[in-house]
């Protein structure tokens, strides 16, 4: 597959690893663009940071890692960029921009700085169908679906929480429930 480099540096592309992306040291993040190579979406560093806060609010760190540490925001971007239709991509970008403007008004602070309970309540209202406009609802839906997929299919969850067996070696059709 041919990938357009756009503004991204070759170094960045080299650091993309299968199944996710490495976090780049701050010194590499000078262009203000996203840390994952994207062919279709135009995502700024600020967008990416907001998305990181959003997946963290959706799946927060507890005694186990949350969305941000598991880089679910980068996974969401990767999947939207590669697997979604242009219509979805436009809706995602428009919704992300609308969310970035709307959320601070509702929260009285930036999304990142807001109290976790208030962030959760805001997302729950979107979840319950009370988004102020359609694009935010669509953006939220895509982000949540992909964040859950990324979470359930993350190495951490698959090796520690909901274990995936590559070689089960057995089948029991009458296991005790």
């Amino acid at each position, binding site marked *: *597959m041919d990938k357009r480099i756009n503004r991204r540096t070759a170094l960045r592309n080299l650091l993309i690893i*299968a*199944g*996710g992306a490495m976090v780049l040291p701050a010194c590499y993040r000078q262009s203000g663009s996203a840390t994952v190579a994207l062919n279709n979406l135009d995502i700024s560093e600020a967008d990416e940071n907001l998305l990181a806060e959003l997946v963290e*609010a*959706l*799946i*927060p760190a*507890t005694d*186990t890692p*949350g969305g941000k540490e598991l880089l679910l925001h980068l996974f969401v971007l*990767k*999947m939207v960029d*590669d*697997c*979604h*239709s242009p219509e979805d991509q436009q809706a995602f970008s428009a919704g992300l921009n609308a969310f970035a403007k709307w959320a601070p008004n509702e929260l009285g602070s930036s999304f990142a700085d807001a109290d*976790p309970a208030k962030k*959760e309540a805001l*997302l*729950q209202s979107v*979840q319950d169908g009370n988004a102020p406009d359609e694009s935010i609802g669509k953006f939220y839906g895509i982000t*949540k679906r992909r964040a*859950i*997929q*990324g*979470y*359930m*299919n*993350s*190495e951490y*969850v*698959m090796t520690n*929480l*909901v274990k*995936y*067996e*590559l*070689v*089960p*070696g*057995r*089948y*029991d*059709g*009458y*296991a*005790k*429930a």
Partner: protein
Amino acid sequence: MSNITIDSIKERTFDAIVIGSGISGGWAAKELTEKGLKTLVLERGRDVKHVKDYPTTNMYPYEFEHRNEIPLEDRKKNPVINRCYAYHEDSQHFFVKDVDHPYVQQKPFDWIRGYQVGGKSLTWARQTQRWSDFDFEGPARDGFAVDWPIRYRDIAPWYSHVERFAGISGNKDGVAALPDGEFLPGYQLNAVEDHFKQVLGKQYPDRHLISARCAHLSSPQPIHIEQGRVKCQHRTLCQRGCPFGGYFSSNASTLPWAEKTGNLTLRPFSVVHSIIYDEGKGKATGVKVIDANTKEEIDFFAPVIFVNASALNTNLILLNSKSNRFPEGLGNDYGLMGKYVAFHNYSAVISADYEGLLEYKTDGRNPAGGGYIPRFRNLHKQETDFLRGWAAAFGARRGEVRDTGKVGGTLKDQLIKPQLGNWQVHSHMMGETVPRESNYVRLDPDKKDTWEIPQLSISVDYQEDDRKMRQDYFDRMSEMFDAAGFKNISPRNDDRIPGLDIHEMGGVRMGHDPKTSLLNKWNQLHACKNVFVTDGACMTSTATQNPSLTYMALAARAVDYATGELRKGNL
């Protein structure tokens, strides 16, 4: 394996040539080499060595860039292959992309192909059932196609022969429509599949649910260990190629076996252009190949040729094998070749819930996939207003329920600690379609492929009977589901395009009469006796069984005959 140097006719001459290395070509190669014939296997795609060339086989889900999803760009460029249930990030390298090998669809037809050593035997669904005389006698009884020139007794020993070597798991169920074979232990039905089996047993004496018979080593025997294969490990990641050799493929089984005889020459990247016919000798003398990489034209020679290029590509090769004697294709004296193509009607599915047996769940994975309902419709006599009948797959699973309606810690808990849901049951229909003259393939008069070989043009569609059969499946399955206490019974038209069943058959059918068929009872071209066709192209009718086991048995049987004829000097 010997490296070929193409510098003399002698070095390009073998005792036998097999075109294709898939499930039937692999069998032809094994049988020919075991009988001492120096055999050249031509494969149009690249080599795939067992284990070594299964790049994704040990990858975890999180190691796939898109978690096994195919990106949009690929889906847009390759709509046909993207409709195949097994085409994902983990297996895409074993499937042909639409853009790489175009064909002409006079009517929509999803042609699913695997151009590599092993062909589709790497990615097949591994379901293996014998035909019975209800199937072989079908055309004669119901007045369609032509009479099969063989009966169950002709092929039964060859079913046994291939089953013992391939390793088929199943139970001796004693169902007349689905003869028992040489089985390794069958896989267990789960609690709800068993429940359904018992309901059928009590209320429908003519209907049976059995554990699906499949080409997996549930209990490997010395013959399988000798192939380097071990017990199936229940990964159900078969489409990636199995490092255990837990399921049968050419790559894991027949080809390495043939190689061990010292009689095999495997030549990948060899696109077959045509079979060479010598009018003076009145028989085929070899195969014209175009090297896929260099585009160099090379002729190979042998006294006997097996055509196992996959059903439709076998048609293409034979149609393209033109000579003064056979201007319309090798053996095609009566314009029959390419016609009477048929497939399996997979256009119906049904699902439901079951609220009972909640004390059980499943643990691990079942390589057989669950249960199988052999054909019971129109079996002993015609009962419906459509011809023939259907078999059905049936499986039950107990899903996990995760409420994703919340966000934050509540959502996370739901994701990590799901609840067990009710059982869900699912079935899909596998219906026999009747071969019609109007369902055909031919060479496109204009379009050529990269190697200047005409593209295949396909005109295959459903018939009215196929739609009636779908309704019958919905009605009968709904009634059985209801009897079993299943709830929320949901029949659904699958509306899939023909071909996506990946059971296309016919075009070079077997029969008694050279005027109405192309192959005799030994899979030998009536009009060119040293050419044998033992893949899906030879099929006179389709029955309801997954066809691969029958291709394997026909291939082994035909090799046995061909080598006997060679020794007698008859070929």
